[in-house]
């Protein structure tokens, strides 16, 4: 049986898994500081994994230097990657700490609340829908003629102006047989106007 000259260290891999699991558990917390600790744990787990996966121990990767008479050099690239990752994580950790402090000064705790807009949407009734008009029928939400009671600049029209508009529109229709219904419309409009005032 051939023995692999560069066996992967199972113990370290288990440690990587455990640290990452702890980190994920803490990331799922609501408290910002715990989330940060979780982030750091996962980060360290990944860094450790890079070291483990990059091969076994070796000499320092500097020309002419040896250590314990090991046969090969350690992989410098993996160390470079880990150093870069550590620096990045440290910068982000500093930033998250400042966010946590800011959150503490605003809310006196560092719990991360739900998104208020999400809550609004999930609690939304028909009357809170984004396509709702003020003039919509309060029960069914359908359009009503009250929506026409504003001029082009958005100012409410007076009763006189509404009658005037109504009349001109009907005259444009040139439908003499609509005489009856046209008075009905006016009455409807007036009752709606009254409702608005109330």
């Amino acid at each position, binding site marked *: 049986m051939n023995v692999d000259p560069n066996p992967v260290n199972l113990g370290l891999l288990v440690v990587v898994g455990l640290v990452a699991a702890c980190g994920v558990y803490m*990331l799922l917390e609501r408290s*910002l500081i715990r*989330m940060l600790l979780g*982030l750091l744990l*996962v*980060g360290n787990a*990944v860094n450790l*994994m*890079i070291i483990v*996966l*990059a091969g076994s121990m070796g000499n320092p990767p500097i020309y002419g230097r040896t250590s314990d008479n090991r046969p090969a050099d350690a992989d410098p*690239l*993996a160390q470079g*990657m880990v150093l*870069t*990752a550590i620096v*990045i*994580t440290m*910068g*982000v950790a500093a*930033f*998250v700490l400042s*966010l946590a402090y*800011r*959150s503490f000064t*605003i*809310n006196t705790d560092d719990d*991360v*609340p739900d*998104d208020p*807009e*999400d809550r609004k*949407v999930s609690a*939304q009734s028909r*009357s*809170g*829908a*984004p*396509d*709702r*008009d*003020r*003039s919509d029928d309060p029960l069914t939400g359908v359009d009503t003629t009250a*929506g026409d009671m*504003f*001029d*082009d*600049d*958005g*100012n*409410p029209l007076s009763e006189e102006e509404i009658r005037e508009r109504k009349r001109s529109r009907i005259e444009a229709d040139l439908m003499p047989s609509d005489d009856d219904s046209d008075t009905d419309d006016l009455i409807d409009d007036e009752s709606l106007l009254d409702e608005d005032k109330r």
Partner: protein
Amino acid sequence: MSVDRSWFATLVVLPTLLPLIGAALTLVMGRSPRIQRAVTIVAITGAFVASCLLLYLTDRHGTYALHVGGWDARGTGNGPLGITLVVDQLSALMLVVSTIVLLCVVLYAVGQGIRDGTTEQPVSIFLPTYLALTAGVCNAFLAGDLFNLFVSFEVLLAASFVLLTLGASADRVRAGVSYVMVSMVSSLIFLAGIAFAYAATGTLNLAEMAVRLQDVPDGTRTALFAVLLVAFGIKAAVFPLSTWLPDSYPTAPAPVTAVFAGLLTKVGVYAIIRAHTLLFPGGSMDTVLLIAGLLTMLVGILGAIAQADIKRLLSFTLVSHIGYMIFGVALSSRFGLSGAIYYVAHHILVQTTLFLVVGLIERQAGSASLRRLGGLAASPLLAGLFLIPALNLGGIPPFSGFIGKVALIEAGTQDGSVLAWVLIAGSVVTSLLTLYVMARVWTKAFWRPRADAPEGDLADVGPSGLVDEEGDIAFGDRADVGRMPIGMVVPTMMMVVAGIALTIWAGPIFDFASTAAGDLSDRGVYLSAVLGGPR
């Protein structure tokens, strides 16, 4: 003196280097806003010009690789040892579109700062951070090795953290926390993916890794791809990894949201395209990607329908339309890929434009909520600026959104599988629903009288600059109501014009995307550019 191949070496580094130098200078010049602005605009314009020249050069001479510091190790049998920057047609196109967007948005932000700027606005940090973001985005498009890609992601993420939490109001801190956490988790998954890929192949250089991955067993290769896809999927906001986006983007200042929406997710899409074509050809994950693309489209647009805030609504359409690009990539055909590339360019422009217009709406009407807005059609300029990109996003002919969608649908029919047809149906439905959402914004915010809006009598306290001002006042009591500042309108118009240009020159640009897709499908071009010699 003509532009020839020898210019490549200089030009390749400029889109990253100029913004970085600019960032350092603006940081030092924090006390003199005029110099800051001038330096920023010069740096980004320089990056834009360099990108345009790169586009021309790649069109003429093909892919070019720069081994920074000369560590190419040619002829030694080892691969490149140092950082490699690679520019091919896809990179060049992405660079040009991105720098156009970055330039317009910074002009817009400067215009807004000049108009609304007070001593409390932290503009002294805005421009340096923005330039760092620019450097990160440009470097991501040029990165020729996996770790350099990771570092450029981190550069742009670190900058985006600062931009998203400018002023650190309660809302922005809340949004910032979830954004920072999700982004960092995605970065750590990416880093783990790098570790696995390095363990499997012993290299980080994309070209060399692509060669060595051929000898890696299929299962391992698919697993590596899956890890990287999760990392890039979070960045690109692909369902089910997309929920962070609509929560965090809308609270940022308008120019910041605009540039994030346009660029950051597309960097993720770009990384997916690279990994899919260069590292893992053969489409081992295509079914997963197709289903993810379909769900991204549908869930995104259904989310948009429920939103009253236009910024949130647009964030959901942003998520939704990422699905189209994933669709094009996952078809694994040259035509699908060229459709996806064209769609990326279209979507960067149109989504940024819409967010800039929303910034104008907020400025003009003191709100971005459909429950408060009304009567905006009184300003034909604003209405026109909104309508063109809105129809474009909704896929109305003759705009570029229509062309991109038709290309993707045609690529789907060429594929012909059942799943592809389902995706085609899904993309048509999504397109119609997008149009519905845009039409609703139009009828409510532009056509309805403001008095008919349910909360039309309320407005935000002040014009939203870089710092968030909280609270509501009666609409009539607003102090600073007035014309839209010219410094904000002109950059928005430039973006609209850029979107129309993508329509007018759709033929040449699509041809370009098609050759870019051809070069991507044939990996030999990329490999020989980086590693030297035919392989």
